[in-house]
């Protein structure tokens, strides 16, 4: 997010030993930006070790770096010109540190690509150029360094420049400025060098100052991904950051993927003046005019300019993982605050990122290489083409515990387009002609959810069956959901691992809600060991109009609860210990339930 004025974040990339650190050290020295005594201190250290002073040492402050003589990570430092402040991100050139280069470059507004005039275009020169394109850095200045080693030859400069210009063109980047320099000597850095008087273009600092300020993103369509929902001081606040566009009080918001809609009642803040609108980059909290169920991962948009809602799309990705990316394997996909399990359906093209050539017949993507892939997600995600709304058009892939790759969305099938999304969203408004009150009158009671939780063997099934019989005898509409009737049908596609279990509980919660909305009492009998999944189920019962669906979390406790993975409820409506017999259990639940549904 680069919306501060008068500051430009600059990444410096290139092949190892082509002079990145030297160039940065020189920029600092020439702009008077070094800490007092640092230059003298490093000159003294160099003397003590009997080696010549190098400007690169200014950057290489870590012991490990001095030992290996390579920059191992992205560090950030600051310098200032008359025009603006620069934050320099030094990115390592060594191949094994591409993930650090990506970490740095993804924050950058502009890039300096450095090429050693005596060595010419090398593997990392090409790889970095290609990665910059995938990451979306468009402002690029190419610096041809070490001109002192080639006698300041205009021929060498022209040869290197045209080779790299051709390369950039082949990957769809229109090269901008090429500058011959000697960072070590200081030619063409802060000012034109006499040794290079045949060159009529700008010095590096002039070229940097000519880069326009970061583009405004507030004129794009609204994209407001929800980070979290807070309940503070009797307010229910949807918190997040606006990733694109503008949000105002009174706006009608469409929430994806649920398709539900509501109106912004207020924009909340603490110790800031009350405002009526906020724009891209702003952290916000909003309250809605309806008690809509919204959770982390939802994306709020305006219905007339909505993103796609897709389970399949094409992306160009770069892979940083320790093990190769493979088709058919499952990964976690993260796109703003959305998280969903996915698999790579097709490897359309695998690219060796050092040559930027297609690897024919490749069936996996190696570390530091790239690919064009079709991704299939388990649930729909709200996405845009990267070209259209960059913040909603880029994703990362998580393999195990590690962020292992990233990519940009380049194509989404027409069937997932915005217009279809809005049409589907329409179903949520007044789907039923029968009001809830009418059902209440007809049945003589309201719907509700009785959620039985406890470790296996705690007596959930027995209690569920007994409750069902008692309620039925009293002419209450009732139905039981448990593993026996959910697993073989609705959740036949799910396993029992972490994310599959979560998805199963999500489905059970939604089905329970539908039963309750139809006027039935739905008894849910699942171990549901985590607090988070039960809290989520409770929130699902919040509905737009009226007081919500009664939710009775009924905890069947046993002596073994603390020794297992089970998380006991903190505030259940009913707690039933092992010593409580079945009849007593039934009457305790019925007593509370009947008061809430009559």
């Amino acid at each position: 997010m680069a919306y501060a004025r008068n500051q430009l974040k600059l990444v410096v990339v290139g092949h190892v030993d082509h002079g990145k650190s030297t160039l940065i050290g020189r920029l600092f020295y020439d702009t008077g930006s070094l800490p007092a005594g640092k230059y003298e201190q490093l000159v003294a250290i160099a003397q003590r070790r009997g080696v010549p002073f190098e400007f690169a040492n200014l950057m290489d402050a870590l012991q490990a770096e001095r030992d290996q003589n390579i920059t191992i990570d992205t560090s950030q430092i600051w310098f200032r010109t008359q025009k603006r402040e620069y934050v320099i991100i030094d990115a390592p050139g060594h191949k094994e540190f591409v993930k650090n280069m990506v970490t740095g470059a993804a924050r950058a507004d502009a890039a300096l690509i450095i090429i050693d005039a005596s060595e010419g275009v090398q593997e990392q020169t090409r790889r970095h150029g290609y990665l910059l394109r995938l990451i979306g850095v468009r402002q690029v200045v190419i610096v041809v360094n070490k001109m002192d080693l080639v006698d300041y030859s205009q021929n060498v400069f022209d040869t290197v420049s045209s080779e790299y210009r051709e390369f950039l063109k082949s990957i769809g980047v229109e090269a901008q400025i090429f500058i011959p320099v000697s960072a070590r000597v200081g030619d063409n850095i802060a000012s034109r060098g006499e040794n290079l008087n045949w060159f009529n273009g700008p010095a590096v600092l002039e070229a940097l100052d000519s880069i326009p300020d970061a583009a405004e993103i507030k004129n794009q369509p609204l994209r407001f991904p929800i980070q979290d929902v807070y309940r503070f001081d009797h307010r229910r606040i949807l918190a997040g950051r606006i990733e694109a566009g503008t949000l105002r009080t009174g706006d009608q918001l469409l929430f994806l993927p649920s398709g539900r809609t509501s109106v912004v009642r207020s924009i909340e803040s603490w110790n800031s003046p009350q405002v009526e609108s906020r724009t891209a980059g702003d952290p916000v909290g909003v309250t809605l005019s309806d008690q809509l169920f919204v959770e982390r991962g939802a994306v709020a948009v305006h219905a007339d300019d909505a993103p796609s809602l897709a389970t399949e799309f094409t992306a160009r990705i770069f892979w940083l993982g320790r093990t190769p990316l493979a088709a058919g394997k499952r990964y976690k996909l993260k796109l703003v605050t959305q998280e969903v399990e996915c698999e790579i359906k097709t490897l359309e093209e695998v690219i060796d990122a050092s040559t930027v050539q297609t690897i024919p017949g490749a069936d996996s993507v190696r570390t530091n290489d790239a690919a064009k892939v079709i991704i299939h997600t388990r649930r729909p995600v709200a996405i845009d083409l990267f070209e259209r709304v960059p913040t909603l058009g880029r994703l990362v892939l998580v393999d195990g515990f590690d962020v292992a790759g990233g990519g940009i969305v380049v194509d989404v099938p027409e069937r997932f387009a915005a217009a279809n999304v809005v049409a589907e969203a329409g179903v949520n408004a007044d789907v039923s002609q029968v009001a809830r009150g009418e059902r209440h009158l007809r049945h003589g009671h309201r719907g509700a959810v009785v959620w039985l939780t406890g470790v296996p063997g705690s007596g959930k099934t027995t209690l569920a069956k007994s409750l069902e019989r008692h309620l039925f005898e009293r002419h209450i509409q009732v139905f039981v959901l448990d593993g026996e009737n959910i697993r073989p049908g609705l959740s036949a596609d799910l396993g029992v691992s972490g994310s599959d279990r979560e998805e199963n509980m999500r489905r059970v919660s939604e089905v329970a809600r539908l039963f309750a909305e139809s006027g039935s009492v739905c008894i849910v009998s699942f171990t549901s060991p985590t607090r988070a999944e039960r809290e989520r189920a409770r929130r699902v019962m919040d509905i737009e109009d009226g007081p919500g669906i009664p939710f009775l979390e009924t905890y069947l406790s046993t002596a073994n609860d603390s020794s297992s993975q089970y998380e006991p409820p903190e505030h259940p409506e009913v707690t039933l210990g092992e010593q409580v017999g079945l009849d007593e259990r039934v009457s305790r639940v019925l007593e509370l339930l009947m008061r809430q549904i009559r």
Partner: protein
Amino acid sequence: MQHDHLDALESESIFIMREAFAKFDNMAMLWSIGKDSTALLWLARKAFFGHVPFPLVHIDTSYKIPSMIEYRDRLVREWNLQLVVGMNKAVLEAGNTYPNGRATRVECCGMLKKDGLQQVIEHYGYTGIIVGVRRDEDPTRAKERYFSPRNANMEWNASDQPPEFWNQFKTDFAPGTHIRIHPLLHWTELNVWEYIEREKIPVIPLYFDDGTGHRYRSLGCAPCTGSIQSTAKTVAEIVSELKGTNVPERAGRAQDQESEDAFEKLRRDGYM
């Protein structure tokens, strides 16, 4: 609405804290009472609409300057904070600390702060710890990530860190390990003071000249923290003083100067 660099930094820090709160069930924030972590505390109140929904951990070395503790306890009352105080009592009782025991300054820091923190993390089972370190403080902190993993021994593998881009952070981790979260990473010392000035955040008076012509620029334990010559008596005067200086901020912190790589070693072993 026009944004300046402080708005951009504030927005980023708030985003990071909300991400951390959403992803870590058991999280705490370190509060050293200094200007950075107090600015961070203010940012937390902004992120969570006046609340701080997680505990603050203060590692008390027993050598803190007394007025720091008074100031801490006053804010805890006024801002309704949950405070957890950690202290490496075994080492303090054995008396093996700098300057009276056998420990060097660096060893003392390791025991009282690093080990003190490790004891708290183990006792409460925190999996996420928010820390107010900044990149510009020191070259080793310049290498940090926003979400930075620590292994079961709290060690930091500085040469092999996870990639971090597009606001997607490392929030998946193996049991027994924890993540340090650094929302102030891209702030500078000057930014912090500019923000304190803009938001009128109450800071401890040790940062101001009390009439002796000296003030503290960085706060730590009394035996190892030196004051600097300065007549800055207000936040505005500190801001203008910093705009004209290029003396490093931690120059008054004696433990860093014991050897060329003293601070780097401390940090790899789990120091904040």
